[in-house]
């Protein structure tokens, strides 16, 4: 029996402890920045814990990858998204309405509350039957969606549901025929069925039409079509009920009979599927900008890890088609990538992308790149240089070392290590010595790592080290390409350019004017 679209069965669902807090690596990897718009756009669903909880089970990851791959179908996704949003919000509102209808007070339990229940019931039926009808004609491949589809189809064909739906429709039809007039004068409202009086506003609009000059302010106040005092609206509705007796009696019966019409499993699905939908929504503009996403293979050993055309997904949100894509590869005995090269050349971005991609893959999401094999990690440890923290009173070097010690003592060979610009606050000789110690420790640890550094010596550490460099344009050394490629460090001196600084030589200006 279908239980969850995030876990293969209810046992796996309950085994996985949900993390309520942001993992530590989020800040350095800019993942907080990536997920924040997702959380914001889906505030009602409370998706945070789903994105805070990396999985360590390849089966569950595969279950999710299958579901998400299937949801990439625009048609299917559209249907499911609409359904999920509707059902989730109806479920929450219906809880409130049930409370009101159980109350003995006129202020809560009146025709307005009953009207709300009718409204929710109608929207619920509409959402459920629509999706069920749509899914009936589709062949679904993923275990998760197939299970859900079977569930909703059997729900819809049940006798009870059918009766419920037709009852809702009949009531709605009766109410749409109700129309009345209020005459308001001196604190009294009189109510009658409507007669054929002409629309006064319309006549005024027509008279002044000719002066239309373009856009003007809309002076209509946004007056909610909700009454200010519910008791007055309820009183008016009571008078209307006197004009249309049978219809309102039917409504009373309906509310008694169907007070619990919503289904718990559908409700859970509505939230969980939002996990996939929100991610697909988030990456849509990136894909539109030509950036590749894929479902990576997840490996339990670190012997052969790679990604082709990966990128920093946080940066990509701003750069879109200008985003630079980079590859990485760690093939046994390679274990540590050391990135050197000019500043602002994309080194940190590269390191971040490495961590991000692993993290995203562990959630079962599709990740940046064309083809990848990624590590099933237990923890991502990051060490990014920080602004000096005055409160600790430690020097920066000392702080670096303390953090490195903590990192190494917490890490295992199942971890991923990312270290960005360490030992920058000491002499080069010192840094080289310390850097070598660090490399010794990482080698002993055996965990895959990315190190960003200005020290060429570290890049030449040993057979387990891959040297990569940020690149500049051949013709113009001031131009970074943000490409990071496998290449021995060359310590290239950097900074020549004067002529044409303003782009005003004959050639440069001609080119600019032609544009």
């Amino acid at each position, binding site marked *: 029996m279908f239980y969850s679209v995030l876990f293969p069965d209810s046992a796996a669902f309950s085994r996985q402890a949900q993390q309520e807090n942001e993992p530590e690596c989020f800040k350095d990897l800019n993942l907080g920045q990536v997920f924040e718009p997702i959380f914001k756009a889906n505030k009602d669903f409370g998706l945070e814990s789903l994105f805070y909880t990396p999985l360590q089970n390849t089966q569950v990851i595969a279950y999710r990858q299958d579901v998400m791959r299937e949801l990439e179908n625009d048609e299917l996704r559209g249907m499911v998204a609409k359904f999920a949003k509707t059902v989730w919000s109806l479920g929450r509102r219906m809880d409130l309405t049930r409370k009101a209808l159980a109350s003995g007070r006129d202020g809560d339990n009146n*025709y*307005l509350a*009953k*009207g709300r229940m*009718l*409204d929710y019931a109608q929207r619920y039926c509409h959402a459920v039957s629509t999706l069920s009808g749509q899914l009936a004609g589709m062949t679904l491949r993923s275990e998760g969606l197939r299970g859900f589809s079977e569930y909703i189809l059997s729900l819809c064909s049940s006798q009870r549901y059918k009766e419920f739906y037709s009852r809702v429709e009949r009531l709605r039809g009766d*109410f*749409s025929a109700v*129309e*009345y*007039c*209020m*005459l*308001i004068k*001196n*604190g*009294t*409202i*009189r*109510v*009658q069925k*409507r*007669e054929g*009086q002409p*629309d006064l*506003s319309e*006549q*005024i*609009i027509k*008279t*002044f039409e*000719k*002066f*239309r*000059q*373009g856009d*003007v*302010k809309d*002076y*209509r*106040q946004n*007056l909610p*079509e909700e*009454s*200010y*005092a519910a*008791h*007055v*609206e309820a009183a*008016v*509705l009571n*008078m*209307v009920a*006197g004009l249309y007796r049978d219809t309102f009696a039917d409504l009373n019966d309906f509310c008694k009979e169907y007070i619990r019409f919503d289904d718990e499993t559908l409700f859970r699905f509505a939230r969980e599927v939002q996990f996939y939908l929100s991610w697909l929504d988030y990456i849509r503009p990136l894909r539109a900008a030509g950036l590749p996403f894929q479902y990576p293979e997840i490996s339990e050993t670190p012997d052969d890890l790679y990604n082709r055309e990966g990128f920093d997904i946080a940066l990509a949100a701003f750069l879109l088609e200008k985003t630079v894509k980079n590859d990485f590869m760690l093939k046994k005995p390679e274990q540590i990538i050391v990135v050197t090269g000019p500043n602002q050349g994309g080194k940190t971005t590269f390191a971040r992308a490495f961590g991000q991609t692993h993290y995203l893959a562990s959630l079962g999401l599709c990740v940046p790149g064309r083809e990848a094999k990624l590590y099933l990690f237990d923890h991502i440890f990051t060490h990014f240089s920080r602004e000096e923290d005055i409160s600790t009173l430690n020097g920066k070097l000392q702080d670096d070392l303390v953090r490195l010690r903590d990192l190494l003592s917490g890490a295992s060979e199942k971890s991923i290590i990312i270290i960005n610009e360490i030992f920058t606050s000491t002499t080069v000789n010192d840094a080289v010595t310390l850097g070598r110690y660090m490399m010794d420790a990482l080698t002993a640890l055996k965990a895959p790592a990315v190190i960003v550094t200005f020290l060429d010596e570290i890049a030449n550490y040993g057979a387990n080290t891959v040297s990569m460099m940020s690149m500049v344009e051949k013709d113009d050394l001031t131009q970074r390409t943000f490409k990071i490629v496998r290449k021995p460090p060359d310590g290239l001196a950097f900074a020549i350019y004067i002529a044409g600084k*303003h782009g*005003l030589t*004959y050639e440069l*200006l001609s080119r*600019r*004017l032609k544009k």
Partner: protein
Amino acid sequence: MKVFLMFSDKNISAKGETYYAKDDLVADLELEPIISCMAQKDETIKTMCRAALFSPLKSADEIRYRQENLKDALQNPDAVRQLYDITVETEKKRKKAWLWLSSMYLSSTFSNAVDLVKLYTEMLRELRLVADRSLPGFRSDGFRRLLAMFQRELDDDYFQTVRSHLESLRDSKGMLISSKLGSHLQGVGYVLRRNDRKGFWTRWRFAPSYTIAPRDDAGATDLVRRCDRAINEATNALAQAAEHLEDFFAVLRGELAFYVGCLNLADQLRRLDMPVCMPELLPQSGSSRNWKELYDISLALTKNGKVVGNDLNTGDKRLYIITGANQGGKTTFLRSIGQAQLMAQCGMFVGAGSFAAPVRPLIFTHFKKEEDSAMKSGKLDEELLRMSRLADHLESGALMLFNESFAVTNEREGSEICRQITQALIENGVEVFSVTHLDVFAEAFLEDRRTQYLRAQRLENGERTFKIIPGEPLRTAYGEDLYRQIFATAK
């Protein structure tokens, strides 16, 4: 109702001043005195004339449309000024009345809108009366269309209908509102209904009723809100009408302001006995320039007297290099070209006996800056940066006026920079006028048949005429002359 005096199919926008490096253009061409003379201290005229000047027209048709309207305004100055005065008067009255449309209370928006609509309709009547009197004197499409529209749209019947609506909104029989049931049975789709049918009250007397209890404040407020919902549309219609009318008067004032500004300037130049003429604009691809007595209007206005003009008659040129003595009238000449081109582009007359030139929808100036001559290296950087920014906006068909640019480094280097830039510009369809002291640069184009050399005239006796005449650069500086002259008078 559309004004359409500036364009045949749209209103001019006062906000659309996005002309790059506008401030440099104003300073370099000394446009302030011209704009002030047009404005005569009227801010609207000032704004609109600036807006027109800095929104150069690109098509000959647009320019012609405005030229025709301007000719008509020059023929009917009194009627144009009367129309303008009505718009000014309207604005004064509105300001005095303290009527605000934006209010938290729908009911006060409603009553203010009613009063404003009344005020504007009265002033519309004034406009129509002017139209009744003066239409026969106008010839141009723009003015004839506007005045005829006043007569057609604003007849007496119309004013009668408006009055009857405004009255029916003040009704004491109570407010009649129709409603349907919304998604959860709340009343929705309130519509204000006319309740002036016969036998109305008899039918309603015994209808079911609910009366708000004496202390039920929420209930009382509810009734007010209910009525608000019902008058929401009507209030909006009236307030928008008031705003449209305000806009209409503002647009009318703005567009008339341009013509009144032109009238003001024409009057002043006539007093100074300086000629003005409607320019003839050739297609953008053209490369001939032909004018007589082209003068610096700004100089005439500041001097408050007659000034020297220049004649030119060239064909198939794209670069004009102007050399010669200091204080020989070169900068003034450059200014007169810039002013005339800019004014011509917005449909104005120009300060010349006659003037024919290609359409140039973009005019940039690059004048040497007088200040901080001490920081020579920084200054070249500044000049290059300024040029580079202009280059970002330059396009084929633009007119570029250089005044002693890039003369801040040594002669040879400055010349080379200047030559490269100039060469790139003219090859890419930019027409260039360049006043220069860089001899190497000036002589670099001697072989180019599409370059016209001009020179500040100096008579045999060394006296300057302030005339610019065709002529290749002479290899003598006139600074010495000036020196001598100044020191001679000092004695």
